[in-house]
């Protein structure tokens, strides 16, 4: 596998069994890549439920981002990498003629731009745009796309006023009727990414873990051979990369140990930590690795499911998230929602930092990404579907002029942004969802995205 002249971009460190570790972008790969030797562009969606306290999300100004709004404060160190987009709308999330169920609709249609069918049984949506991209470029990576989440992934039952849980618990849709349920369990994700054989019961896993060695131990020989061929920069990069994998492994092992001590009968997958922040960190660390090693270029991440009533006791908030968002303009309830919104961004900021500090080519991994963080509702108290909270973090391959707050024209379809992103991902299509054009190139003042 080790090549003397150049490494292929999709090289692996292979070991015994099914262990296989993809490699990050190394200088040693450059000659093997296209003449431009450009790193690929990746995209990820971080969906948060129940809208946003927009008074603390939207800046009071436009243009260059200076002081960040309260909810976005944790992202202030990265404000130069952020495009804060205003006025994007998902008309298909609105009631239209289907009555109650804004939560079911807004998450179901978020990436499809299609009005979902109100039903518990006859599920009908559209193909989400991430899957259109995956169909086009997914062959270039080990996983065409990754669907991840942190909460409830059940696919049946009534999750909102007659809307199936399939709509609230999935972002990615492979076909009109086939959602792609998110992986919630860090261990399951780890094994999917690095291989470990067949799924095991918690007991089997526990037994195995006594004897478990690091996945890195299985690829030691290959690692040593590769290191011997690399220059100092690549060697350091490889060390950092392998260390990050080991760190994730340790986190998962810790979580499994803690879970066993806390509540062996807990209603969660075995490897899912009880702590929200810890769970997010594990998942996002693996996302970073997946992007770094070019295992996938497309990730959808459901922070918690739409309509989630998860309490945030770690913030001193025992109330459910969703009931709180119907705050009826009561200051104390609104403040709790702001705290939850900010807490979510804090977790996301940790991921952004990781991406920003991971070198790729002459820049950072973040430079080659489009990380969309947003929600399918803006004002949750009124269930509004316009001016959806949306930020893009990363320059999409040094394409977007970030560090700015830009406004689209009112009622501009969110699908316009998706069309633009599909272009950047190398999977252009003429039309998508209810788009009325592309976001970039609209000759309107204030909206010069590229």
């Amino acid at each position, binding site marked *: 596998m080790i090549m003397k002249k150049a490494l292929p971009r999709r090289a692996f460190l292979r070991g015994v069994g099914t262990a296989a570790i993809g490699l990050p972008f190394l200088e040693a790969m450059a000659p093997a890549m296209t003449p431009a030797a450009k790193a690929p562009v990746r995209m990820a969606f971080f969906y948060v439920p129940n809208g946003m306290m927009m008074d603390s999300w939207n800046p009071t100004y436009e243009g260059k981002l200076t002081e960040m709004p309260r909810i976005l404060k944790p992202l202030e160190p990265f404000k130069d990498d952020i495009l804060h987009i205003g006025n994007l709308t998902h008309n298909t999330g609105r009631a239209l*003629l289907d009555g109650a169920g804004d939560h079911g609709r807004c998450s179901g249609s978020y990436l499809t731009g299609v009005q979902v069918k109100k039903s518990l049984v006859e599920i009908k949506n559209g193909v989400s745009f991430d899957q259109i991209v995956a169909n086009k470029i997914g062959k270039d990576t080990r996983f065409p796309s990754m669907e991840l989440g942190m909460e409830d992934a059940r696919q049946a039952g009534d999750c909102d006023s007659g809307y199936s849980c399939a709509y609230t618990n999935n972002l990615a849709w492979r076909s009109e009727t086939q959602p792609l349920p998110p992986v919630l369990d860090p261990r399951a994700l780890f094994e999917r990414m690095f291989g470990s054989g067949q799924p095991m019961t918690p007991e089997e896993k526990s037994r195995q873990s006594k004897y478990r060695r690091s996945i890195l131990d299985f690829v030691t020989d290959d690692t040593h051979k590769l290191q011997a061929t690399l220059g100092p920069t690549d060697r350091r990069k490889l060390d950092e990369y392998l260390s990050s994998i080991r760190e994730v492994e340790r986190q998962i092992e810790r979580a499994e140990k803690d879970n066993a001590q806390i509540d062996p009968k807990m209603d969660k997958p075995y490897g899912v930590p009880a702590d929200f922040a810890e769970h997010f960190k594990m998942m996002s660390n693996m996302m970073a690795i997946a992007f770094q090693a070019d295992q996938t270029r497309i990730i959808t991440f459901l922070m918690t499911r739409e309509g989630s009533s998860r309490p945030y006791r770690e913030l001193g908030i025992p109330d459910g998230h969703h009931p709180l968002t119907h705050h009826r303009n009561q200051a104390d309830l609104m403040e709790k929602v702001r705290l939850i919104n900010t807490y979510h961004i804090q977790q996301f900021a940790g991921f952004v930092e990781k991406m920003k500090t991971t070198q790729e080519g002459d820049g950072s991994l973040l430079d080659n990404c489009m990380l969309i963080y947003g929600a399918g509702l803006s004002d949750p108290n009124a269930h509004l579907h316009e001016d959806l909270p949306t930020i893009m973090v990363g320059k999409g391959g040094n394409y977007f002029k970030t560090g700015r707050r830009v406004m689209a024209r009112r009622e501009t379809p969110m699908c316009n942004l998706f069309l633009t992103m599909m272009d950047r991902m190398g999977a252009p299509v003429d039309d998508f969802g209810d788009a009325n054009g592309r976001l970039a190139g609209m000759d309107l003042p204030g909206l010069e995205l590229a």
Partner: protein
Amino acid sequence: MQFGRGKPAAGAFFDSDFQTVDSLLAVALLHGLQGKSECRVAIVTVSRNSLKVAGYVDMVERFYRGPAAVFAQVPPPGMITTGDGGVVSPGLTEPFAKKKADGSPLFVNRVARVLDTGDPSTLIRNYLQAQYEKSSYFVLAGRATNLAAALDFKGVKDLLKERSSHLVIAGVESFSADPAAARKVLAEWPTPVTFVPGEVGKAIPFPASAVEKDFPANTPDHPVAAAYAAWQAMPYAAPTTALAAALYATRQKETYFKAETGTVLVGADGKVSFVASASGKHTQLSVDPAQRDKVLAAYVELATAKVVPPQRFRPAAADAAKPPADPVKFPPKP
């Protein structure tokens, strides 16, 4: 756009270049009809590239929708972004100079740039999607540019066939200012089309006394009354072609006017003509002298009606005071 308790009244779509003051009165009349639950004003779109016009329209919509705007989204004014906006009547700008007793502006203009408006075709598509089958109608009072563009916008023609029942065109002078668009709308609009010639408006002018007395008696500081008064020196009686179109479009069963079948034509010079024929695809209205007083009374009553913000369809007002029930059911336990 949230309906949950029965079928709401038909949605009214109003498009105009607001070149004549009767277009403003027509908006007021539609809101008067909305106050009687005879229609719901869906959107108002502007067929003139003028932020001043769009700003006035937006202000009027907010004025009528009032506190209900919290729960019923106030759609942005649709506005075309090409062409010359032309001269804007002081009637559309002077109301913004009016002050309250404390010195603050009586009416606030929230449209400062194109971004504050919406694309007319997109708005028409989006709001048609929220209408029940054959439960909406269009009123056009001005150049047909927006409606012609909407016909070519993806999905709109099919939505019109499915969700809309008729179009009524007010034959104001500027209707044929974009003759190609006028011809396209007359030829391709997929619902029955009725034309109200300018003579109908001239025959039943709007009385200045209604502006001076009825408006303030029902609603002090009314923006339409302010615009009318600033449009030209008072007192004057404005033609009511757009009012006739809006009234006829909403109260189709009333015999306010005489109707004749035929074909409306727009010549190369922009001149509009009507050829009567039983096989024609259009209908043209004319004044019925016997109905004149009744029509005028309806104009005044409806256009100057006390402002009634649109009703929410869910939850009912009585329920609103209670803590909201969590509409999201917890997922069933496996």
